[in-house]
């Protein structure tokens, strides 16, 4: 099932707000730096990766672990959308 960009962003935003207290200290914008501003800490980044894999049914490969893909909510959403589009279709789909 294809998801809209907005729906993906909303789910990622909710996850970040629920799991990382630093994200709740000020309004969280789609373009805010997640790592540089310490909204997501060292240990939390694995939680984020695990979440998007489970929630959106994608696999984050080693080569996907690039700053561009995880810089902000927008970037994560864009990455999820790209991975979803490129996901191989099984015969029953």
């Amino acid at each position, binding site marked *: 099932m294809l998801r809209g960009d907005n729906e993906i962003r909303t789910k990622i935003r909710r996850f970040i707000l629920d799991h990382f207290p630093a994200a709740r200290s000020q309004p969280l914008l789609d373009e805010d730096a997640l790592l540089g501003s310490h909204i997501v800490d*060292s240990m939390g*980044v694995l939680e984020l990766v695990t979440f998007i894999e489970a929630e959106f049914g994608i696999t984050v490969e080693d080569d996907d*672990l690039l700053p561009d893909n995880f810089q902000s909510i927008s970037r994560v959403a864009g990455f999820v959308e790209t991975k979803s589009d490129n996901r191989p279709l099984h015969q029953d789909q």
Partner: protein
Amino acid sequence: MPPEKHPPVEMFEENFDLHDGLLTLKGPLVELRRQLDTLFREWATIVGAVEYSFPPVMSVSSLASADYFSSFPHLATLVSRIDPSEGSVERFVRSARHPSLEQIGREHLAAARYVLPSAACYAVYINFRGRQLEEDLFITLLSPCFRHETGYEAGRRQWAFHMREIVCVGSEGSVQYFLDTYREFLKGKMREAGLPFTVAEATDPFFDKRDPRRIIQRLEPLKHEFLFNGSLAIASVNFHRNFFGERFRIRDRTGMVAYSGCVAFGLERWLFACTQQFGPDWSLWPAPLKPSPSAATT
């Protein structure tokens, strides 16, 4: 005119022995390694680093605090002893009375409580565990380091080698400034010396590709390696964020969790790189790679 290149193999063949990843150096190579370490100690004075000498082993419990055994189990060299419980030593002595003994079975060993370090700077965080710092710390230390690897090459990859580090623990801004300073300083020195190098983002050799610290290293440029001839990492500049501060409960002078970073030099790799590039005669090495006479005598 650039100095004539001396093949390292020729230099090393005459002055080293490598067996099971253990490197023995002799004569001029020992002196060259000493000179290089003197040079790095001199470079540590830029930030007024205090030299420390820590114990050569670290406790399992200390390193476990830093997730060491889930992050780097494949590198670890454990320290054990003959099981001291009643009758065990006698049993071991009876079994070991032959000159061709090559290994000691686990039935004779006590559980390992200590580890030989695979990097020097753990000792700093262990030493300052639970402390609030009055000011930013700048420390330099030389440590023998041990890493089990799948293969060994003299001067490039050994099981046992030496690492000189300069470490900063303090506020985030201080650590970032420290790392930026050394990154530029090293570029300048290596360029001035004519040592061919590139700087590359890198990750540590974590056992698990999903180790959170490995992921964060891929997503943020936390580690930069200085690669001799594009492939051999002879120095690295590492930002740990506040990982060690959190794990070892170290606070900066304002009471916040401390940040840390380090600059690391692999002495045997520098020895390899410099002898390859400049030859075995230290007097012919370029000035930026020679410690000042005053540093050499301290």
